[in-house]
């Protein structure tokens, strides 16, 4: 998969190819992409290092949460490669950690994390999507969320 270089002035948009058609996973992926885009805006607006590092913390925390909820989901649907998927998550977290400490600048980190998100979503998470479709498993988690409730 070719790495994409981010155009710093352009919003990171959701693409249909990211869809896994699993509502909850897509929802969390969308939030993750928004967090990465917020980081892009931070760099664009010259936020100071301390603020950008806080944003990286937030991204890491969210990623940890997302992986945990994705793993829980895999256990619930009796996904056959759950353990393998968990190990992939651990590897990804490891790469993210190394990148955080080794990148020379925030721009490099932004590019890394975006490509990291895209490659995982398009490969490993697509396999979950295929499994669900092949086995006709219903996934209704979070489907009733409506952020406009009460307005």
């Amino acid at each position, binding site marked *: 998969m070719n790495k994409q270089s981010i155009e710093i002035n352009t919003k990171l948009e959701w693409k249909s190819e990211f869809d896994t058609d699993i509502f909850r996973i897509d929802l969390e992926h969308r939030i993750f992409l928004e967090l990465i885009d917020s980081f892009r805006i931070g760099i664009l607006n010259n936020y100071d290092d301390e603020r950008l590092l806080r944003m990286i913390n937030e991204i*890491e925390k969210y990623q940890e949460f997302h992986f945990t909820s994705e793993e829980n989901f895999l256990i619930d649907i009796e996904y056959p490669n759950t353990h393998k998927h968990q190990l992939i998550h*651990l590897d990804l977290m490891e790469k993210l950690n190394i990148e955080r*400490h080794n990148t020379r600048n925030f721009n490099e980190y932004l590019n890394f994390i975006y490509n990291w998100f895209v490659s995982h979503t398009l490969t490993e998470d697509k396999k979950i999507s295929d499994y669900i479709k092949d086995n006709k498993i219903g996934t209704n988690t979070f489907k009733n969320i409506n952020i406009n409730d009460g307005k």
Partner: protein
Amino acid sequence: MMESSVRNVLIVDDIIDNVKIIENLLLKNERVNTYIATSGEQALGISRNICFDLMLIDVRMPDMDGIETVRKLKSQTPNKDVPVLFLVAKMDKDGISRVFENGGADIIYKPFHYESSLARIKVHLDAFCQKIQLKKMLKVRDRFFTVLAHDLRAPFTSILGLSEILHHRFDQLDHEDRKTQLKVLYESSNKAFELLSELLEWGANLKSVMTFNPERQNLLAIVEECQTILKYLLNEKNILFETSVDKACVVMADQTC
């Protein structure tokens, strides 16, 4: 005293980038020699010849994992008591629970947080070095007690011997003999008393040990003094005692010890 020593730290992780991150963090902040390995096998090889003060080991490694590596490392004598901090991903719940069951002293979480990782490493490095220091001090204390017991025994040997002679053979001794023996008895008691007083003083202070103040002493004078003390005891046992010391021989010694 402990701050000045350079500590040996072993870092093991199959991903060299992780090793480098930890190594840089340590080298920037602590006085350490770092030894690195990217597999359990390699770690075992290194640790055969080096005594470490701390080992940082990744739990999840291919072939020999961190737990197995530590089990083997601990079976080697030079490093069996060294604290191990495992490197574990925060998400790796299975890894975290296995760490403490398998002799881990603590965990360094990935993603690494510099300040907390360094604080944990420092705590365990200091605690281990203090433990080593304490062991050394206990050894010194034990040696000190042995020397002390030996020093106290010497005057008591003459006190007991002389008082025994005076007690059993008082009537057979002439006036001069009694006088000399009592003088030696007095001096020996005094010496033992002085030693006990110094010991009490040391115990009260507990800050310093007994001081050793060597001075120039004539060896012949010291030997003659011993001869006077032992004379009656040696006579009792029919032991012939001869000295052959150069008059001019001078030694450096502390007479109170």
